[in-house]
Structure formats: C-alpha cells, structure tokens
C-alpha cells in the first residue's frame, strides 16, 4: 500500500469541537468552550410553542418553582432537624417555636407539598383531557409517571420525619405493604426497618432517603424537559403546529404567561399557608409517636387518599397492594389503550365525558380513603375502584374504537378562529 492510499483510507476526526457560537466577546468565549449559552438560547428564547396554549400549560413551570422552593425550605429545615427518635419530635417543635422564622419555613415546606400535588394533579388532568400522552409524547408521559412515583415516595418519607403518631403509624402501614411480597416479605420489611419494628434505624434512613429521592426527582425532571423540547408542547387543539401562524416564541410570550400563572398559584399557596397552615394536615401528628397505641383512624395525607382507598377496599392483602401500585402504573398503558388518533377532548364528545367521570370518581375515592373501612363505604369504594380500572381497560379502547370525532380545523390558527366564532368550546377557566 502506498502512502497516498493510506491517507485516503482514513476519515478525519474532530475531537476538538470549539467554535460555532453565535455570540461574541466573553459570552462567545465561554459558549465556545461550554455550549450551555447557545443551548439556553435555542431551547428557551428561540423555542417555538403553539400559540393556543392555555393556562393549563403553566403547571410545568409552576411545578418547577414548587420543587425549587421545596428544596430551599428543605435545606433550611435540615439544618435544625435531628433524625433520632428521641429528638425528632422535639427538634420539629423547636423549629416551630424557637428557630428564627422556623414556623414559616416549616409551614411553607409542608404546604408546598400539598400544592405540589395539586399542581401535579392538574398537570395530569391537562394531559388526560388534551391527549398529551399520545404519539409522539408517550415517553415523556412515562417519565412523568416515574416522577409521580418518586414524589409519592419522598412525600411519604418526609411525613415520617416529625415522628408524630401519624408519622409512626403511616410509616408502619406503608412499610408493611412490602410484607405482602410472597416468601421474602418479612425479611424485606426487617431489612427496610433495620430492626423488628419502625424505630430509630428506620427514621435515620428515611431522612437520608427523603433527601436522595428529592434530588432524583430533579434529575428525572431534567429528562422530562429534554423530552418536551424534542416532541414539543401539545396544545388545546391537539393539532401539531404547521407554520409561523401557529406558533409564538417561548420567550417572552410563554414565559410571561407562565409567570402570571406562577404568581396566582403562589398567592393562593401563601394564603393557605398563612391562614390555614394545618388545614391540609392531620392533628394527630402533633402527638409524639407511641408504638403501643394505634390512632383509631389512620388517614394518610389527602393526596394519597384515592390510592389508599383502593388498597383498603380489596379484601386480600397482596391483591390490595398490587391494585394500589397498579392504579398508578396503569397510567403508563394509557397511550396504547386509548389509541384514538384525535388528541384533544375538544373534538371527542364521548371520551370527554369519560374523563370528567374519571375525575369525579377520583374525588369519590379520595372521600372513601378518609372514611371508616366498613359498611357502605366499602361498597362505594369497590364500585369506584372498579370504575377506575374500567376507565383504562374498557372505556379507553372502546371509546377509541367507536367514537366519531367532531369536525376538526386544519391548523392551530384556524382553531383559534373557530374559537372566536364560537364554533368550539374549551375549558374556560384556564383558557385565554
């Protein structure tokens, strides 16, 4: 082989990719070496979003703000809290009474959790109603479900930390869910506890895991957002943007709108935190944990109630646990169970009713989760549980197969015109 041939055979490589920044000066110098500035410009300034987005699309931003505030307040609380069964309860009381602004920081952390779940449920409802889980956004939807699971885990772990009666018995009941695992159940639970009951070892590790999972959420949220920036935002019409008449720049249009949404949401949050800080909590958690006395009524936080109801109404232990976990996991199958090609409920008259019924049923389950576990409540709970699963396994494919969608506009700007002409109705409270 001659030297000439040899050189032709090898393709050039460029391991050094500096350059190509649209910026100059210091910004350009940095951007050529760490291309985050152009990424930010590309993803947040030039990024195009459908112009028909309603306030329902602000909840992603609202959730981000909530997550940041939760981490900041959590960091502050962590500087004063002691994860030891002897001191945990008292250290929380010290935060409430002695630490400068401790009451504010703790009430903010506690109520932000509730508002985080409110925002997440509205965010999930938005996806259900406007078909945001459908092609090509299935993976983004699945990542969202992972975030939801992690949120529930963190919220549960955080709730055990004050070591009140509800903390202790909540921890006992939830960790005992693992004892339903065939054969290894008991060993798994002992391993989780590091003892033969929920105690000091458990509290200490719950505290560590509460931190860990909070940051895992941040990581998975980054994935959720990366996926969003590839598939783009859905919108109330469910139609993909086609040309510049259909879109606006993310900044300043969506950012300013999202800021309004965040402000209104945070104002409501502050009002609740200041005037009814314990309204969403359970008074029994201000009684120190006592392993000998189970409170007559063990009730989880409101955001767990629907799933807790599903657990309780099933008379078999293992099946109850499977149904409870399954009730969340089943959301992941929805993009395939609901195979209708029309995304938005605006054009799906029957599915729209199903979604509203599902929401109503969710509230019924929430009520049942807080009611005593006997009599008529169990019967209602079983019907509601049956409907919950029927929504996914029967209604979704059935409606997708049989429903005749309403006539649809060709594009988003036409959709907007139809809306102005009163030809179509959208959910009014969050539109405009």
């Amino acid at each position, binding site marked *: 082989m001659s030297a000439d041939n040899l050189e032709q055979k090898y393709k050039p490589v460029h391991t050094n990719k500096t350059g190509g920044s649209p910026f100059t000066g210091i910004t350009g110098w940095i951007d050529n070496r760490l291309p985050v500035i152009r990424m930010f410009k590309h993803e947040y300034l030039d990024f195009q979003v459908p112009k028909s987005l309603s306030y329902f699309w602000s909840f992603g931003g609202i959730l981000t703000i909530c997550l940041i505030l939760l981490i900041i307040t959590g960091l502050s609380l962590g500087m004063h809290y002691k994860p030891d069964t002897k001191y945990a309860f008292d250290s929380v009381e010290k935060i409430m009474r002695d630490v400068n602004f401790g009451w504010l920081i703790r009430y903010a952390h506690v109520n932000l959790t509730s508002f985080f779940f409110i925002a997440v449920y509205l965010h999930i409802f938005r996806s259900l109603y406007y078909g945001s889980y459908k092609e090509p956004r299935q993976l983004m939807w699945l990542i969202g479900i992972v975030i939801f699971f992690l949120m529930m885990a963190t919220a549960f772990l955080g709730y055990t930390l004050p070591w009140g009666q509800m903390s202790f018995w909540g921890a006992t009941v*939830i*960790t005992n869910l693992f*004892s339903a695992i065939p054969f290894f159940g008991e060993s798994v639970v002992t*391993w989780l506890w*590091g003892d033969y*009951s929920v105690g000091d070892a458990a509290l200490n590790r719950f505290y560590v895991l509460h931190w860990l999972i909070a940051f895992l959420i941040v990581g998975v949220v980054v994935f959720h957002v990366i996926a969003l920036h590839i598939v783009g935002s859905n919108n109330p019409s469910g139609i993909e943007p086609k040309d510049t008449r259909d879109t606006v720049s993310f900044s300043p249009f969506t950012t300013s709108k999202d800021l309004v949404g965040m402000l209104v949401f945070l104002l409501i949050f502050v009002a609740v935190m200041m005037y009814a800080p314990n309204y969403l909590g359970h008074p029994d958690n201000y009684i120190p944990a006592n*392993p000998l006395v*189970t409170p007559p009524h063990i009730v989880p936080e409101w955001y767990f109630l629907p799933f807790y109801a599903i657990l*309780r109404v099933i008379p078999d232990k293992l099946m109850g646990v499977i149904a409870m976990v399954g009730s969340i996991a089943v959301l992941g199958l929805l993009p395939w169970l609901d195979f209708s090609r029309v995304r938005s409920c605006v054009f799906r008259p029957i599915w729209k009713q199903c979604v509203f019924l599902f929401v109503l049923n969710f509230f019924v389950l929430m009520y049942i989760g807080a009611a005593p576990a006997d009599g008529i409540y169990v019967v209602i709970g079983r019907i509601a549980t049956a409907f919950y699963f029927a929504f996914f396994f029967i209604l979704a494919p059935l409606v997708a197969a049989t429903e005749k969608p309403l006539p649809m506009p060709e594009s988003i700007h036409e959709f907007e015109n139809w809306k102005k002409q009163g030809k179509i109705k959208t959910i009014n409270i969050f539109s405009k």
Partner: protein
Amino acid sequence: MNENKNKDKSTRRDFLTTVTATVGAVGVGAAVFPIINHMNPDSSVKALASIEVDISGVNEGQEITVLWRGKPVFIKRRTKEDILKAKETKMADLKDPQEDKARVIKEEWLVVIGVCTHLGCVPAGGQGDYSGWFCPCHGSHYDTSGRIRKGPAPTNLEVPKYEFVGSDKIKIG
C-alpha cells in the same frame, strides 16, 4: 495469538476474559453484600431480643401489653368462656386454620404479638365480632385465640417464642 493450536479453540484471551469477569463478579458481590446487609438489624439489636415479664398481677379476663423488640405483645389471661369459644371453633370457619392448643402453652394464657398481620397496626382488645381483637386501621377481626376471622389480614396474630419461668413469669424471646 494467531498460533492457537488448542483443539477446543479456546485462546489465552478467552481465559483472561473469564478470569477478569469472575474476579469482577466476586468483587461486585463482595462490595454489594455489606452495602445491603448493613441495613439489617445488627447484633446489639438482636441481643435485646428477650425479656421477662411478671404475670402474677394479671387477673382472669385481663390483658397486659408489653413491648418486645419494639412491638407490643399481648398477654391475656383468658376466661373459661374465652377458652371454650376458641376450642369449639370449627377449622372450616378459619381463614388460617390452627387449633387453639397449637397456639398456647397453658390454656389460660394467650401470648401473641399485638401487631395486625395486615399492615402492622395494633388491634384493640375485647372488640370486634369475635370478642378477641379488632384492628381499627382496615377492619380485621381476631377471635379469643388471636386467629383471623374477618377482614383483610391474611394470617393469625403471631405467637412469639416464649416459655414459663417459674409459676408467675414469662420469658419472651
């Protein structure tokens, strides 16, 4: 390496791959086991695993609760009626069939771990449809032998390992 004359075609590289993979697997296993196992109860926790309880002051029909391994243990001095009820129950009526005599050492004394086998709450004594215990969390009913009769709990209240030390003391664990 081109000069491999072994009949089974295995090379030095195959050998190195196998050895490296084995050492790697052993190393990972050796590292993972402590990381998993440190979360289990340690010897100091296990050492606290037995207690002695004085039962001389417990009258017929009374029940005391003691803490063992962080869990409540019910020690109940059963009445004749309780014992009779427990003995007469047909095995067919039980979800987790077990004779009463298999659950006690002395008929008069029932010793069970006071943790509902459903999700770990403490059942309340003298309540429920079978006058044994009733768990307020998810509605499990236990009879006078601590056996599950109704509700979501899968098994009977657990009987801990115990023995009578003298006439008025029980050693649990």
